[in-house]
């Protein structure tokens, strides 16, 4: 048996039955990381010693009949989420050497659930990007084709899970940064509703759009990790104080009568023909499984991208003002205080500087109404589109990304082309809906294609169950990438 090929849910059951130890599973992951990750570059920091300690502690507890939700399960955490005593860089030189003095709420939850944390995964700098090429440290490769990107910004987490270097992983999704890499890497990725998961200790990019999300090789694995970290946190005033349903129990596979909306604005010119075919075929499968397919319209879809690229940089420019080289991170000393701050902030990479500049402009006196103010109003229209749609349907089905994984370097010189990668995902963030990506086939190059399912706020159980039903039927998740060669 190849331990690394087990799903999280299978591993968890075997751990509980005493058929395998957490130390064995953790060692299997660490060995595989040594074999594969020099090429793949999915991890920025390995916490192997800590992981083995956590695994030993888990085995002791398992032997005593303890069974917290993720007891003994090795997982990975995106390096934009703070981990006490473990470097956290957000993929940026401006946080080089930063060691958080506390765990993010979601990491506290992981530890309370008994998970083993293998390490921190690569990310586009401050989660700004769609390919993980904006990391200041390494370029992560797609496990299905090492010349291609894994997607982003949570590309390290997605690649690690797809390649069997973690049983599940945390990411963050501000405009599609969980769903798009899940699609590119052929795994399941969930972006829950804003407020479902605490953002406390998650390094901020755009505070009205950021949300922690989860990756798994299967929908059930993704759900198990989500279940463990969902819930209210008094330290995050935007986290919702609402009951957390039993999402795992909601995975029945029964979707008879489910109303699935197909928005005509998402099947547009520019979408890859093979992507469209695979997604339409997946929608037909949902119908075979008993869903009712309804054509719908989200009329303001074409405005989502400009709205997002005004609001997100505006929020980022405010959030990133804190990086001044005074309280943490490196400092570059200049002629005076202001000069030092400016020189220190020159450590930001090109995409982060671009967005800070854009956001600063959109918020500046004389342009606020014209850009930021206008974007906030169009956000209202976008949100209304979704609320209207969810009066008629339970789930909206679309492609996750207009293309499959592109080549490393292909889009780096054209920010707008890169931004277009997120065209199908960012409305979910703007409208405060929830969304996921689930594999729905491969193109002729052997690259994975993702189906996006969108639900109304707090309806994660509905989209997870729809994805689960589809996955049981389609079984794309049983195909694994081949590694070890470049």
């Amino acid at each position: 048996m190849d331990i690394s090929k087990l799903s999280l849910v299978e591993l968890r059951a075997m751990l509980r039955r005493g058929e395998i130890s957490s130390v064995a599973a953790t060692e299997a992951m660490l060995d595989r990381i040594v074999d594969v990750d020099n090429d793949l570059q999915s991890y920025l920091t390995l916490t192997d010693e800590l992981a083995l300690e956590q695994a030993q502690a888990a085995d002791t507890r398992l032997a005593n009949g303890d069974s917290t939700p993720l007891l003994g399960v090795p997982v990975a955490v995106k390096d934009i989420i703070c981990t006490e005593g473990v470097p956290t860089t957000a993929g940026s030189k401006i946080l080089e050497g930063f060691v958080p003095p506390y765990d993010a709420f979601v990491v506290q939850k992981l530890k309370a659930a008994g998970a083993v944390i293998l390490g921190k995964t690569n990310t586009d700098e401050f989660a700004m990007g769609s390919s993980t090429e904006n990391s200041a440290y390494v370029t992560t490769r797609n496990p299905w084709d090492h010349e291609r990107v894994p997607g982003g910004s949570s590309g390290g987490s997605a690649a690690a899970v797809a390649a069997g270097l973690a049983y599940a992983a945390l990411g963050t999704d501000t405009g599609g940064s969980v769903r798009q890499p899940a699609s590119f890497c052929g795994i399941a990725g969930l972006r829950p509703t804003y407020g479902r998961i605490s953002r406390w200790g998650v390094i901020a990019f755009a505070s009205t759009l950021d949300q922690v999300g989860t990756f798994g090789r299967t929908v059930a694995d993704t759900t198990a990790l989500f279940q463990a970290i969902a819930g209210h946190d008094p330290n995050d005033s935007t986290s919702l104080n609402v009951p957390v349903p039993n999402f795992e129990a909601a995975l029945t596979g029964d979707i008879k009568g489910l109303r699935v909306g197909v928005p005509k604005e998402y099947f547009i010119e520019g979408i890859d023909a093979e992507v469209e075919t695979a997604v339409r075929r997946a929608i037909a499968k949902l119908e075979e499984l008993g869903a009712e397919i309804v054509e719908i319209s989200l009329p303001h879809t074409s405005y989502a991208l400009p709205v997002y690229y005004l609001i997100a940089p505006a929020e980022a420019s405010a959030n990133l003002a804190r990086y001044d080289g005074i309280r943490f991170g490196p400092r570059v000393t200049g002629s005076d205080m202001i000069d030092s701050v400016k020189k220190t902030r020159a450590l930001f990479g090109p995409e982060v500087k671009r967005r800070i500049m854009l956001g600063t402009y959109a918020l500046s006196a004389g342009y606020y109404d014209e850009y930021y103010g206008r974007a906030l109003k169009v956000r209202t229209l976008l949100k209304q589109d979704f609320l209207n749609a969810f009066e008629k349907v339970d789930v909206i089905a679309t492609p996750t990304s207009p293309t499959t994984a592109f080549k490393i370097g292909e889009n780096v010189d054209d920010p707008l082309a890169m931004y277009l990668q997120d065209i199908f995902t960012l409305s979910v963030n703007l409208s405060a809906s929830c969304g996921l990506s689930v594999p729905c086939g491969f193109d002729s190059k052997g690259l994975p294609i993702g189906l996006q399912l969108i639900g109304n706020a707090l309806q994660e159980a509905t989209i997870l169950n729809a994805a689960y039903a589809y996955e049981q039927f389609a079984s794309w998740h049983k195909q694994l990438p081949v590694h070890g060669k470049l």
Partner: protein
Amino acid sequence: MSLTLADVEKIANLARLELTEAEKKQYLEQLSAILHYAERLNELDLTDIPPTSHAIAQQNIMRPDVAEPSLPMEDLLHNAPQQKENQFVVQAVLDDGGSA
């Protein structure tokens, strides 16, 4: 709209970013293109449309006014590039004459 080099320099100063001449030229071009793209929002009639400034509207989330333990000072200063006597050390921000 098209930006000028002076606009780029003004924004960089507001954002406290030191840019190279090459970066200024590049951002001039790229930001102008992105802002031009964003102008498609002008097509919409937004009369009487309220802005959405929050993902999910909530107001005045309060907690009981009870003191809770905070992190130890040394943990919080641990990441500082320069520190002394439990404080962050920075360059002087006041004039030498002390007139401020």
